[in-house]
């Protein structure tokens, strides 16, 4: 049969490239697996690519470009802002679109339309996971929230944390502050923390690189020893040099890249990734790429077609659908994970390691996600 075309409208240059390439590589791994096993609906999957150059206008053009090359499903950038223009093009054609790893609730029905999905885990879930886990396992009762206003993802983490933490027994947020990712110094923010009568048990840092690494270094340099929490965005050991011998830093991830994930499939994937690229994944952001192809392919098999609406209907039927990185669910209200089993990675003495896993006790409600 004729090939089935999947279009990748992703960043192959500019700063998003660092996120998009690993996830796209992971997606390719799953595609190759499927092709090796005989393809999808008996058709081999063919991939066409276009570069968004980390630019919104180019993103829309990239979307059109892959459509012109016959794409029947579209994979778009890892971030909502840079993926949405392309995803909207797909939506206009009635085909499915998947964000590689966007974690803003708008990457789906709310911000694109009924046929758009993201297989990653919402930023708010990451924040809420940190809140509940730190409360339960580290006895955190006081928290300080430090929000980087750079991108919506950061705000999402803080939203989740701010929702969950105060609900917990005896826990309270003792202060909060904001900074900008490219601030040359966050000395004033640190001074404010140090002026607290008592150091907080945890500091919820809602930030991404490079600001997150800079903030951690400055916090520790100022002698603040509280446990620091963040979202998945800072997973990976590549940035740890910034604060030698860092300890007491925790992030939630979908799977561990450090070889210690209790699920064998995760390590199998890491090996496959290494075989394909010559190196292990640098962060957990490869995983959602693999998951999205996996889920979409299943839905296509079940629907027996690649037609957008039919596949969407199948995807929305998925409740705790097993994947290598934990179960995934979609509904007609949310095309994103508002709860997930997350691995907890802690950095101690400059070494990251999986220490625990956690699933929040209650999904983050839609109202909270939508900022209401």
């Amino acid at each position: 049969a004729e090939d089935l075309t999947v279009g990748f409208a992703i960043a192959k240059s500019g700063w998003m490239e660092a996120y998009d390439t690993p996830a796209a590589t992971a997606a390719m791994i799953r595609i190759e697996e499927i092709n090796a096993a005989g393809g999808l609906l008996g058709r081999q999957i063919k991939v066409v690519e276009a570069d968004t150059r980390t630019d919104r206008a180019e993103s829309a053009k990239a979307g059109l470009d892959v459509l012109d090359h016959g794409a029947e499903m579209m994979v778009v950038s890892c971030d909502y802002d840079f993926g949405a223009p392309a995803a909207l093009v797909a939506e206009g054609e009635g085909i499915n679109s998947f964000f590689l790893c966007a974690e803003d609730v708008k990457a789906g029905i709310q911000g694109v339309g009924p046929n758009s999905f993201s297989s990653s885990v919402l930023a708010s879930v990451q924040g809420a996971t940190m809140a509940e886990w730190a409360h339960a396992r580290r006895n955190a009762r006081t928290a300080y929230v430090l929000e980087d206003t750079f991108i919506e993802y950061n705000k999402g983490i803080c939203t989740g944390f701010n929702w969950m933490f105060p609900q917990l027994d005896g826990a309270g947020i003792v202060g909060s502050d904001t900074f900008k990712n490219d601030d040359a110094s966050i000395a004033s923010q640190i001074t404010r923390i140090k002026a607290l009568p008592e150091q907080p048990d945890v500091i919820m840092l809602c930030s991404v690189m490079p600001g997150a690494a800079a903030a951690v270094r400055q916090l520790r340099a100022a002698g603040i020893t509280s446990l620091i929490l963040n979202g998945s965005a800072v997973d990976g050991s590549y940035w740890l040099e910034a604060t030698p011998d860092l300890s007491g830093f925790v992030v939630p991830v979908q799977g561990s890249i450090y070889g210690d994930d209790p699920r064998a499939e995760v390590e199998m994937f890491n090996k496959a990734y290494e075989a394909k690229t010559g190196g292990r994944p640098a962060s957990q952001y490869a995983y959602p790429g693999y998951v999205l192809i996996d889920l979409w392919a299943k839905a296509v098999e079940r629907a027996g077609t690649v037609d957008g609406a039919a596949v969407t209907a199948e995807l929305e039927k998925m409740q705790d659908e097993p994947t290598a990185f934990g179960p995934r669910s979609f509904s007609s209200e949310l095309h994103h994970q508002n709860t997930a089993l997350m691995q907890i990675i802690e950095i101690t003495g400059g070494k990251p390691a999986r220490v625990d896993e956690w699933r929040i006790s209650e999904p983050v409600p839609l109202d909270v996600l939508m900022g209401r």
Partner: protein
Amino acid sequence: MSLQLLFDALALGGIYAIAALGIALIFGVMRLVNFAHGQFIACAVFALIVPSTDALAVLGLGRLPAPVLIPLILALGAGLAVAAEALVFRLMRNASPVALMVGSFALGVALQNLLLVVYGGRPKAVSLWAELSHPVQIASAEVPLLQLIVIVTVAMILAALAIMLRHTRLGLEMRAAAEDFTMARMLGVRANRVISGAFALSGAMAAVVALVLVAQTGVADVRMGGQIMLVAFIATVVGGMGSLSGAVAAGLAIGAASAFLQAGLPADARPFRDAFLYGGVILVLLIRPQGLFAPVGAKPRV
């Protein structure tokens, strides 16, 4: 608390001041607003690590001991700036200030993309002089050692430059060439050499900023330096065109204002910090259009 805040303000202001000096030096000599200055900073930062697009950064030059590393990076910054002058700006001598500015911007874009190609888009971690991050106690304040060093370094650089410009031959020639290039040459000033000198100094200032930034934040990112460059540019104008000490003072003032706003604004208004800051800039300009520290007679007489 307030002493602590003073240190915060001085340290941030100090970084802006050195950056502003780098911008003002070239602006003074060539009427060029060098938008590539931010990329000079980024290049000086990336010079510390081995070129590679891997996620994990490997220190190259950055491993050298400080007494070797510092002069080397300063020289690199200076060399880059001098090369930029020779290859781009010297050929644009007759262009208008706007054209020069756009040219410098294009140069910045080229440099940034070159860094992207060579090092990849992912921010990298660079552990430089981690030991400077230890806090020291000064009266009621606990200040990271690095902050102190920044403050002292800025003070020293400024003093040295002020002396250089006011009291040395080269300083005088720089200021003369800044005003009327050909006339200065007609008086025997080796103008190209003077301009190269200004660029070298400016590039070295970019390198100083780079080292301070890396030591402070521990990261290297291709976009770093951009925001600092803009603040420095604003400081140059707010300080008073053509006044180097004005640029420095305004750099300090903007940094300090930013730190004080961050400390003083209510939580809800804090994300809007920069809006207040820039509103203040407009206000200052309206009150003193020629800049806070404009030299006497800077306002052209009729």
